[in-house]
């Protein structure tokens, strides 16, 4: 299935129409077909897609195309705004009782949704906030579920409570609270067995747990890869048990996660966190606007910008942009750029966040590129300080010495020097544009080539 950027797709439709100042109904209809496909491919609930496209149509027809945008970008802008609105604009946090009282969280969900892992992740998260969590094993059905929780609790260095698999989960939950009180733990996290929302007996068990202990937060874990079923699941759990929020797991896959939108918009339940991997620290805050971009297949430019802002040394960056635009870029600057890139999570980390890059990346051997980058670094490090500051000094005998020092073949040094010179040339050309002050973020100039190819949607 195509994982194309929606903007690209819409651009194709609109390519014959550029120059138009207003969106006609035909334009919008053509665009809406693509939007519908994009949302359905992302597993957004079918009914929601219908309502949504109707709403977008109403807004888009007759709309003036803003000066700075192409018609495709204009439609995407409207779509994005609507999506973000549906997702809710604010993030929701789990609010616990004061430290002097015991707060209770209960994890519920289908089999394999990631309850046990998420329970442990939550425990770790709150432990960092100086709470005293207790992980409680109430999954008495699945073989070895208790072991799984126990091992995870040990990894998080959080106390663990189990009464084996012979007692009823209701009884275990009740006693766990007594135990927490004795031990001075003030956050009880109950891991329950996975169950189908149509299994009346097991759904009643959850109700019974809620009757027996005062649960503050019932959290539904949902696999981000869930299809059209997501709404049914969330609605049933919400009706029969009552849920206060959702954790969307396995978001580190390549799923677009339309389930998030469906659950938020159709059940009105907030998405609290995203589960991002196997490491017990991998629980991320949920940002509705970013998810909207992901669902549309537009990458997560915002996260990238934020990360860039957090990591970039702005002064340094400005300096290198200035140098670049004058063609004075040298090996020291090149090295800086590479180090910055590394800080941002390496090539792979950046490319993943760029729109349209997810697909492009599949053919790329990132590990090889990163290894290559290491070799380039060692070559530069084998240059003298003078050579680094003044690339023009380079000559065959210097190259020979550098190759020896870096332990590489001279051809690799030659290649680097050539690439560097090309880059210098390119940057000089780009320099004019950059000084034009397109804003954006400083320092990303080194990614100039990329920027030209996978241009940002907005």
């Amino acid at each position, binding site marked *: 299935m195509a994982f194309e950027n929606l903007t690209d797709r819409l651009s194709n439709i609109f390519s014959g129409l550029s120059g138009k100042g207003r969106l006609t109904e035909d334009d919008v209809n053509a665009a809406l077909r693509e939007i519908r496909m994009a949302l359905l491919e992302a597993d957004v609930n079918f009914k929601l897609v219908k309502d949504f496209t109707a709403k977008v149509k109403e807004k888009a027809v007759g709309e003036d195309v803003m000066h700075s945008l192409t018609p495709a970008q204009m439609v995407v802008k409207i779509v994005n705004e609507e999506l973000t609105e549906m997702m809710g604009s604010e993030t929701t946090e789990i609010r616990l009782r004061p430290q002097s009282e015991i707060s209770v969280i209960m994890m519920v969900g289908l089999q394999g949704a990631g309850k046990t892992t998420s329970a442990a992740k939550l425990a770790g998260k709150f432990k960092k906030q100086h709470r005293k969590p207790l992980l409680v094993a109430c999954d008495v059905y699945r*073989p070895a579920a208790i072991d799984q929780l126990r091992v995870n609790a040990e990894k998080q260095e959080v106390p663990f409570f189990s009464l084996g698999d012979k007692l009823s989960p209701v009884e275990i939950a009740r006693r766990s609270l007594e135990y927490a009180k004795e031990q001075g733990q003030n956050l009880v996290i109950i891991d329950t067995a996975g169950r189908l929302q149509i299994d009346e007996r097991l759904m009643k068990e959850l109700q019974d747990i809620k009757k027996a202990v005062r649960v503050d937060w019932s959290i539904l874990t949902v696999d981000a890869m869930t299809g059209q079923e997501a709404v049914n699941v969330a609605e049933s759990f919400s009706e029969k048990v009552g849920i206060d929020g959702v954790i969307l797991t396995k978001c580190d896959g390549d799923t677009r996660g339309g389930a998030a939108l469906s659950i938020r918009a159709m059940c009105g339940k907030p998405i609290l966190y995203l589960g991002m991997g196997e490491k017990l620290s991998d629980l991320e805050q949920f940002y509705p606007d970013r998810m909207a971009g992901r669902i549309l297949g537009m990458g997560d430019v915002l996260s990238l910008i934020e990360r860039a802002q957090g990591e970039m040394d702005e002064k340094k960056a400005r300096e290198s942009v200035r140098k670049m635009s004058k063609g004075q870029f040298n090996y020291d600057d090149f090295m800086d750029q590479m180090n910055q890139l590394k800080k941002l999570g390496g090539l792979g980390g950046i490319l993943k966040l760029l729109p349209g890059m997810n697909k492009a990346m599949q053919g790329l051997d990132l590990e090889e590129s990163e290894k290559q980058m290491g070799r380039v670094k060692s070559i530069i490090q084998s240059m003298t300080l003078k050579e680094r500051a003044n690339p023009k000094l380079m000559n065959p005998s210097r190259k020979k010495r550098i190759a020896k020092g870096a332990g590489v073949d001279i051809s690799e040094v030659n290649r680097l020097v050539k690439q560097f010179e090309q880059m210098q040339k390119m940057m000089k050309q780009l320099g004019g544009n950059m000084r034009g002050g397109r804003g954006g973020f400083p320092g990303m100039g080194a990614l100039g080539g990329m920027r030209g190819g996978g241009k940002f949607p907005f």
Partner: protein
Amino acid sequence: MANFFSKLLNNIFSSSEVADDSFYEELEDAMIMSDVGADAALRIIDAVRREAKRKGCNLTKDVRKILKDYLYELMRTDESYYEFERQKSIISVIGVNGVGKTTSIGKLAEHFKSMGKKVILAAADTFRAGAIEQLVEWGKRVGVDVIRQREGSDPAAVVFDALQSFKAKNADILIIDTAGRLHNKKNLMQELGKINRIIDREFSEGFRETLVVLDATTGQNALSQARVFQETSQVTGIILTKMDGSARGGVALSVQSELGIPVKYIGSGERAKDLHRFDAGSYVDSIFEKQ
């Protein structure tokens, strides 16, 4: 899938006599709602439409028959798909996290044991906490040997051990449990490649079967999963799990239609007996069953 989808289908088929545009549109919608996916739904409906035109029929009851035949042909498995059940076979079971690999293996073990086969299980999911214990527990329930090492040990080494034991004990079927892996994680996919190479080297004469486990509640990502697993391993079939929910599992149709990987088993429920060979006939019948 059956219940929901069939209700929809029957509504559509009974609401109009003549198969017009809006009828086909409704049909497409019903399929999308069952996770068949927009692409596959379009393709299936196009094919059905063409066939209907060719035959010159425009009544919904005729189209119903055409669709039914088409789906049956699409999903059909014949006896040759199950040749490995009669041979000395190594079965690798792979899939993303939480789809029900270990449970399915327990059920498969029961399936083969009831056929009188000597079965060995290999606990090569050395990563997830409790995975080994879970498989050992299944081994006890079903009464088959489980080859295991410590948590965190090299999965390929477990497989190597299991193969030696398989040969020494002259067993019939070896089923390998692997760690759940998201298909976009390169290192984990390479680990799978290593396991495959060991099997090739140590037991090249054996029958190989590689089953991808798909969760019936999964949406369009299942296609991406199946596709990437197919790249690292020669995938020979699918186990579709959690079919006892209200999930539609329609994604099986698109996996078959886009990638040509057949569904071989259907899993539902928690008991060891809750796994069956996939039967296209009753599957399609159930879709069209009168409520």
